[in-house]
């Protein structure tokens, strides 16, 4: 029997106040990812609202802690990859 979600603990967030919002979002995402996304179902994203709430909390924590994430390019160091 394969249990794709809800069987594992949720890990800590960088914003201590965001734990509950992260838990809600992670559960929603894990379900959507396994049951819809990987199966090619391109319906509306059911997690957009929980994601928005979680993000507003976590982004605030990132600013408060001065974590240098601004301006970091997506897949950033890929271009510096040395020749193998």
């Amino acid at each position, binding site marked *: 029997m394969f249990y794709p979600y809800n069987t*594992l603990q949720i890990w800590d967030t960088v914003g201590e106040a965001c734990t509950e919002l*992260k838990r809600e979002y992670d559960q929603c995402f894990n379900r959507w990812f396994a049951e819809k996304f990987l199966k*090619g179902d391109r319906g509306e994203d059911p997690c957009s609202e929980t994601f928005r709430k979680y993000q507003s909390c976590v982004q605030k924590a990132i600013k408060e802690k001065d*974590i240098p994430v601004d301006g970091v390019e997506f*897949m950033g160091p890929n271009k510096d990859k040395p020749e193998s």
Partner: protein
Amino acid sequence: MVKYFSGADLLKTTWDQVCIAFWQRYPNPYSNHVLTEDIIFREVTPTNCLISRRLLTKFSRAPAWMERYLPKHMSSSAYIIEDSIVDPQKRTMTTMTWNITHARLMVTRCVDYRTNPDNSNWTELKREAWISSRVFGLSRAIQEFGLARFKTRVTKTMKGFEYVLAKMQGETPTKTLAETATERARETALAAKEKAKDLASQAQKKQYV
């Protein structure tokens, strides 16, 4: 100066299950060094790929000889960015991980997950890492340290992955509590030994002043 490393691994699980486990792999008994885990960006692209950015805080103590060259506040925890692209059409997942603190020792890892061509129930991992440092005169020593740590982490990552996959499949993970306890004790002992060495070398230095 850049040091390059590459390797391959095999997980005896389907690509779908590996991807599902990827988002749920913290915490596991092999990830004691991971303190926090957050998604800070996520989007489905027009080509139906899922792109995500994960921010991790890791406990990352550099050895005493190296800490002297790193800013004080950076010595105990490090922020790591992990970007990923999941393409369910091509059935590939690519992750790129690098540290945004400790910038003088930059460790970048790239892992590519795809279905094994000989057995569609298995997943192949191709990993690459490159380590660069900009501390004049010490580059080589720091890179060697980075590479050694990277190799230990790879083993832990794989064990962690296997643990999470086993748990998801309803099996009892092979790592017992006793094993975890022994490992913890060993780590603590090792940390104490490092500390003692550090104190001894400081005492020795003082004698010559």
